[in-house]
Structure formats: C-alpha cells, structure tokens
C-alpha cells in the first residue's frame, strides 16, 4: 500500500483546490482548538471563506486516548463564502488513533480522507497501547482512510523537552505548509494569540511553528493551494472573525446596554465570558447572579429603572426564567433575553446543538404572554440582532427573545466589520417631568403602544404590578380591565408585524418544493438547495428570522409550491415509524407553528443528533422528497 510507506515530501507544485475541510483531533487539553482557530484566522486573513467549529467533549478531563475524549476543531476553508461546517473532512491531524473513533461514529470522514497520525503509539512501552494502535491503523485503512503515520512528537522533541506544550503550534506549522499559507501572517497570529504570555513564549511557539513547517516539507507528500475569494467579495470590506457568542457580546456592547445579568449554563456562558473581559470598555457590567431566576429578575430591575438590560441563557435557564418573563410581558418591561439553544435538561448530549426551545420560547409562560421572538441565522446576525432587540424592547415596551444555538455559538466565521454608530446606543435615561394626567399605561388602542415613566421622573410615580391592572397600573379584579390589558399587549405584536417585510425566497419564487428553515441551519440548507438546483431540481428555500410575530405573506408564498416542508434540528416523529400516523405524528417545532399559522399541510424533516445539519444530509432528504413528488404525478 502506497500510503503505508514513509512519505518523502519533495513536492514543489501545489494542487489548486476550491475548498477543503480540515480537522485537528486530540485528547482534551492538547491545544488542538487553539491551533485550529489560529489556522482559521490565517486563512481568513488570506482572503478565504472560513467556518470553524469546535469539537468538545462533554467531560472536562476525560481519560486520555478515549473516543469519548475527542477534543478538537474543524476548519472549512474555501475560495468562496463558507456558511456551515460542510460534510466529511478531507484531511485530519490526529494526536492519537482512539479519538478518531468518535469522529468516525459521527460520520465526519469518508473513504479517501487523509489522516496525518501521530505514530509514537506504535512504540509505546505498554503492549496494550501498541496493539490498539496497530489494529486501529489497519482498520482505518481497510475502511478507506489514507493514513500517514508521522513522528510528530519526535519532531517536537528536537525543539522542546516537553512536547505537550507547543505541539499544537508544530501542527499549525504543518498545516500552514500543506496549505501554502503565508508564514508571516501565521507568525503574527501566533504572536497575537500569546500576546499576554510575553515574548519568550511567543518565541518558543514561533520555533515550534517553523519546525512543523520544515517537518511537513520533508515528510508529507501533500501541497495544496486554496485561492482567496474573488476580489469582488472582498473589495473595500474589512472583516472580523468571531464566534456567535462573542458576536452576541459585541452586540450587547454595540446596543449601548450596560448590564448583562446571567447564571452559568452551556452553551450560553461564553458570551458572558467575553463580556466579563471587555464590557468595561463601554462602561458595562456582568452580574453573575445566584441563579437563573435572580439573573432575569435583576435584569428586570435595571430595565424598570431605565437601563434596559440583557440576560443570556440556554434552555433549562429559560425554563427557570419563565415566570419573570411573564411578569415582563404583563408589566411591559423592556428586556433582551438571548437564548443560546441546546437539546434539553441536565448535561452531556443535551448541551450540544439543537433548535429545541422554539415553542418554549413562544409559549413557555403561564397565561397569555405575547412577546417578540426572533432568531439569528448567521454569526453576523448574532451581533446585529442584539442591537435590534434592544430597540424593539424599548419601542414596544416588551421582552424580546433572540434565539441562537450551539452551532452559531461556537462556529467562527469572517464577516463584515461593522462601523459602530451612535444611533445603536441606548439614549441617556429620560428624567424630565411626567405629566401626571397621563397614566403609566397610556395605551394607543390601535397599536397597544404607550410611553413609560422611569423612576426619577417627577410626577411619574406609579406602582408596577405583575397582577392584572388598569391603565393607571392599579390592581384590577374586573373582567373589562383584564380583557383590555390582554388586548393591548397582544396588539403590539400585530403593530410590529405591520412593519416587517415578507421574507425572500432563495431560488425560484415558485416550484415543486419549498424548504423552510430558521436559525443556524441557513447556510447548510441553502448549500443543499443550491446543489439540488444545479442538478436541475425545482426546489427553493425560505429562512425565517421573526417567529413572533411571524413575517407577513407566508401563506401566499407557500401556495406557490407543490409542497412545503421545514428542516430543523429538533424532534419530530418519522412518518414511517411504528404507530405513527397522520393523527399521532408530532411535528418539528417550526412546522407545528406554520401549520397553525397558514393552515397549509406543511411537512417536516428533523433530527436530534447533537450536531449541526450538514448540506449533504439535507441534500439527500430533498432528493427523497422530490422523488416522492414525482411519484405522486
């Protein structure tokens, strides 16, 4: 077998590719993510489209060399804009063979995926490990992986006695050689990564990086070139690279909010980590509350006092916050709640990617609790939508829920760097005198909107209450007041809906199949639709941002297609499963809403595998449904 022989890299002519998917997989704590993020930044700086996604074990210190402990990163780089993690990887650097098993189980590789594998295990003092290693390599090859066994650690030992530190930069050097990356850009990125650790540490990491480049040049027979995006895509634009949670944090700052009140929960917390580090630059403060309930109540206190606050959480946190959310609706308190969705209660797999909280976000509260709910579909939107959320919250005197998910939270991508504007910032709080004849809920009966007195306004004194109340905020036990209050709070959503534009269809405005998505699946759905369209199929897609109120014109758009279906990452019954009939089938969450909203027989396809949807997977589903439509003809 050709690939079993030691490789001798003397290739000088790089093969030009349009895109590649690279993974670095290691035990936890070996720095694979740092190497991959640096590699992604280098690619972005060189003008590539990039998407990086972290591979995170559920445990903090899982045992070494275990499939469950696989920790690492995937980098998809291309000569065009990249919007999702893609399908199977093309090249993998693995620090040991065991961690590859978890990736194989996730379908991350295909026949022909190149594996650059640390070979020190072949000579391990423990016979058990030597056996495991040899068996695995044989198994991988039998399954079509192209395994290059490489003395990576030995290469590191030539530079440092402790290869655990710096091995990741050695691997970064290897990748930078293989993908013809600019070494100066890479070294600048390394210096930036370690800027807080001092010049000595930067110097050692630069040495490791150079050694890795030489090593790949001498020992690996691979040399690729992935040209930058077209100048048109890049021209005149400045880009920034963040993940979605950092983008949320930047959005909070850009919105001029001064307080984030939170309680730690995966995968939401890293947004607050970022803010804890940077918020003071714009005069803000992160309050880590004693629990999820206190986190939202504290935010409501600040909002009530005129400083609209933000609370950031994930599904179980939302469940704990529901009563306060209902209070915010009832008492018309502005609030921004960012919900970084996941899969369910507890920990472990439920902390992974899922769009599981849409219905809970819309209907989780006791009684009627109309509020604004919208979802970001890209990392860039994570930033901009927080700014929109604060403005909506204040203009409509209501809590606003912004939904993202673990896929956006940890994915990284270059996007246009916005130019901060003073218009984004919250205005200074109004302390002017309040006309005492105007009640604290001076509802415009057409829109439900009303101005809000803020503590400190002379004449504005009123007692906010979570109870049913009159326009004077007096506790009401009479039927008419309760009906009127409910009308007014609901009316606001209709008023907002009147300002929204109908969504744009991606692809032809009519045809056989329309795929409707929401949230982080945008990139994967559109890539799958584009593939199917290139193959001649009549399929389009539509991606919703607003979910409460719904964007206008959906029924009219849906009627232009023979079939409408949603693609989502939350649970629905497979219609072919035992006992599942038209009567018993439980639909995916957006499908459920759209069926009620449009009275159209919207179908769905959804899975809960704990990872982002991939374009290849969706493409296959579209073809099946298109096939079925043909069969119906």
């Amino acid at each position, binding site marked *: 077998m050709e690939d079993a022989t030691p490789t001798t890299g003397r290739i000088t002519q790089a093969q030009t590719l349009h895109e590649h998917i690279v993974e670095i997989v290691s035990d936890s704590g070996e720095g694979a993510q740092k190497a991959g993020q640096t590699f992604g930044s280098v690619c972005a700086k060189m003008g590539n489209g990039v998407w990086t996604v972290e591979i995170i074990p559920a445990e903090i210190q899982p045992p070494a060399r275990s499939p469950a402990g696989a920790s690492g990163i995937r980098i998809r780089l291309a000569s065009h804009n990249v919007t999702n993690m893609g399908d199977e990887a093309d090249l993998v650097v693995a620090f040991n063979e065991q961690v590859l098993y978890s990736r194989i189980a996730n379908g991350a590789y295909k026949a022909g995926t190149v594996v650059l594998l640390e070979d020190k295990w072949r000579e391990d003092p423990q016979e058990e490990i030597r056996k495991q290693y040899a068996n695995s390599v044989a198994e991988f090859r039998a399954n079509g992986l192209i395994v290059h066994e490489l003395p990576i650690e030995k290469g590191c030992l030539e530079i440092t006695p402790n290869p655990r530190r710096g091995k990741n930069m050695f691997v970064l050097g290897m990748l930078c050689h293989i993908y013809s990356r600019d070494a100066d850009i890479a070294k600048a990125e390394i210096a930036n990564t370690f800027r807080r650790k001092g010049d000595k540490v930067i110097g050692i990491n630069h040495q490791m990086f150079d050694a890795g480049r030489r090593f790949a040049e001498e020992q690996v027979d691979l040399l690729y070139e992935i040209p930058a995006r077209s100048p048109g895509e890049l021209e005149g634009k400045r880009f920034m690279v963040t993940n979605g949670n950092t983008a949320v944090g930047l959005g909070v700052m850009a919105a001029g909010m001064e307080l984030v009140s939170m309680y730690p929960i995966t995968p939401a917390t890293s947004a607050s980590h970022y803010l804890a580090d940077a918020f003071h630059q714009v005069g803000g403060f992160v309050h880590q509350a004693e629990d999820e309930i206190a986190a939202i109540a504290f935010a409501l206190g600040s909002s009530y006092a005129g400083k609209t606050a933000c609370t950031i959480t994930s599904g179980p946190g939302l469940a704990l916050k529901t009563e306060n959310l209902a209070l915010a609706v009832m008492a018309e308190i502005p609030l921004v709640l960012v919900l970084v969705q996941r899969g369910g209660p507890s920990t472990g797999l439920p902390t992974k990617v899922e769009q599981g909280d849409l219905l809970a976000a819309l209907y989780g509260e006791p009684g009627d609790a109309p509020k604004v709910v919208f979802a970001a579909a890209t990392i860039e939107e994570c930033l901009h939508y927080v700014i929109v959320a604060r403005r909506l919250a204040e203009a409509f005197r209501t809590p606003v829920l912004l939904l993202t998910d673990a896929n956006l939270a940890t994915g990284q991508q270059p996007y246009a760097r916005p130019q901060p504007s003073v218009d984004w910032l919250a205005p200074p709080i109004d302390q002017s005198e309040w006309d005492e004849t105007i009640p604290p809920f001076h509802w415009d009966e057409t829109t439900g909107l009303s101005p809000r007195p803020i503590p400190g306004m002379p004449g504005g004194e009123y007692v906010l209450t979570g109870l049913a109340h009159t326009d004077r905020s*007096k506790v009401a036990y009479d039927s008419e007041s309760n009906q009127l209050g409910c009308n007014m709070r609901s009316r606001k959503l209709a008023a907002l809906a009147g300002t929204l534009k109908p969504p744009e269809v991606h692809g032809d405005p009519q045809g056989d199949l329309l795929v409707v998505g929401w949230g982080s699946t945008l990139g994967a759905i559109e890539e799958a639709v584009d593939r199917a369209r290139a193959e001649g199929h009549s399929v389009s897609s539509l991606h919703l941002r607003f979910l409460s109120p719904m964007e206008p014109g959906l029924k009219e758009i849906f009627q232009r297609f023979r079939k409408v279906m949603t693609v989502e990452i939350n649970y629905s019954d497979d219609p072919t499963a035992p006992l599942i009939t038209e009567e018993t089938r439980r639909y995916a969450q957006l499908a459920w809403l759209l069926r009620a909203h449009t009275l159209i027989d919207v179908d769905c396809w959804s899975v809960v595998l704990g990872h982002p949807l991939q374009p290849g997977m969706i493409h296959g589903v579209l073809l099946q449904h298109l096939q079925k439509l043909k069969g119906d003809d």
Partner: protein
Amino acid sequence: MFGTKADWSLEVFERYFTIGDYAGGEARWCPGCGDHGVLTAVQKLLRDEQIMPEMTVAVSGIGCSSRLPHYMGTFGFHGLHGRALPVACGIKSRRPELDVWVATGDGDCFSIGTAHWIHAIRYNMDMVLMVFDNAIYGLTKAQTSPTSPLGMKTNTHPFGAIIANHNPLTVTLGITNVSFVAQVVDWSPPLLYEVLKAAHRHRGTSFVRIVQRCPVYAEAHIKQMQSDPNNVLLLKHADGIPVDKAVARQFPNQREHDPADLSSARDIAQDESVIPVGLLYHKPDAPCYEDLSSQGGYMTAEEKLAGLEAAFDAFTI
C-alpha cells in the same frame, strides 16, 4: 456692586414633602394587622428625611406584606413571589442614586426567596429590607410558614407544625458581608420608627425583621408573644437604637449589647426564649456591590464608541 435687590432676594421655592406625597391607595390590610403600622412609620420617616418621592422605589414580592408599594405615593415594583430582592438589587445596580425599600414577608423571603435573601445580604446593596414576619401565610389563608413555631395549627398542618421554625436572625448573622441586622415588634411604633430610621441611614442592606401580628390567622401566636412584656428583650447601646422613656417602660427586660459585637449578636439571636428588639449588628463600612456594578455609568456616547471600536478591532483581520 452687590447687585439689585431682585438678584439676592430671589425666592427659592424648595420642595417640601408632606405625608400625603408618600401616600398611595388606601391600605386594604385587615383591621388590626401589624402592616398598617409599618406603612405609617415608613411614610413618616420619608417625610422627616424629605426624600424625593420620584427617587424612591418600594419593591415587593407577593404576600400581604408585598401590598405595601400600592399604598405608597412613590415608584413601586410589585413583582413575583420571592423575587423582590433580585429586582431591588437590579434597580440599584445601575441607578445607585435611587432610594430603595423592600417589603417582603416570612414566606416570600425565608421560603421561596431564600436564595436571594442569602445573596442579597452578601451583595450588601444600599437598601432597607423589611421582613414582615407574622409566622403564617396570610394571603393564601393560613398555611405554615418557615417561622411558624412547632405545633402551630395551620391549614397545611392542622395537627400542628411538625418541624421547628427557622431562625432568620442566626441565618442572616451568618452570611458573609452582613452589615445591619435589627429586629423590632410592630406593637411599639416609636421603636419601629427609630429602627427604620437607623436602617435607612445605614449604607448597605439593612435587614429589619418586624415581628408582626396577624390577628386573623395567628391570633394565638400573638397572644402568647404579648402575654408577658418580658418575652421581649430590649437591646440598648450608645451605638444602637435610641430608646425613649416610653419604649423603655414598654420593655422592661433589657440588656446592653454593642452592635459591633458579632459574636454576642449571634448568641442573642440563638436564644429563642425571648424576642430581642433593637440593633443586633452593625458594620458601617462593609463593601456595597453597587460601587462595582455601577462603574462606567458616567461614560459619554463618544467614549462608548471609542471602546466599541477597540473591541471590534481586537477581532478585525
């Protein structure tokens, strides 16, 4: 050279507030309920201290006690059961200039709101925390509260409360950064007024437990407490609550107690054979969380934009 008369004799109409400026809706507590006296004391104190009504916020949870904001003429926040404290802390976090009063009860604070009570004491934000403790759930009609004494008959324990009551004083005195702990009984209006005045003047979270009467659901409990004036122990000290002759006559059972002495305060709190009233503990200089949480509130839009540019630059490629 001294200007005309009009320059120096301009009349400045200072705002002067009367009790009426602090009065809201008519109080709807039951006749004989101890809550009425607390409301009166708070309104009188605000008047005496001339606090601007628009700068005052009364925050409450749910329960009889939590009706208080509705009877005030100030701003108010009548929120959720158990959640008055995090709301009050949030109000204070970015608006430290507001004068915040919290009205809560034994169920609201010591049961459903326990976590917030513990942590609010630790945050020590400047507010008066009044716990109206009548040892019973009143609004939901006579269920056992965390401070209902063992054996007290209620609708949830018709044969008598089956576990011993919680001791809110020992708990509060055990919390890190506790800065002000006082107790008073509602049937001594002058002492109640003085305790609230000291609490309001203290910078930090002033925990005031008001042992208070529910004549509808806990009459026997009150009768037992009021049966002998010696059931109450009046704490006296130069640094404590000023005691006038009438109060001294009302509570003949007295002892000296230095409110700086935490360990002695804990001993007094531990002894449940009497109801100590007065100032148990006072630490005037404990750090207040709003000094941290409100930082940066002065920033101009230009400064914020500069900070934002720097934040974006850190990720710009």
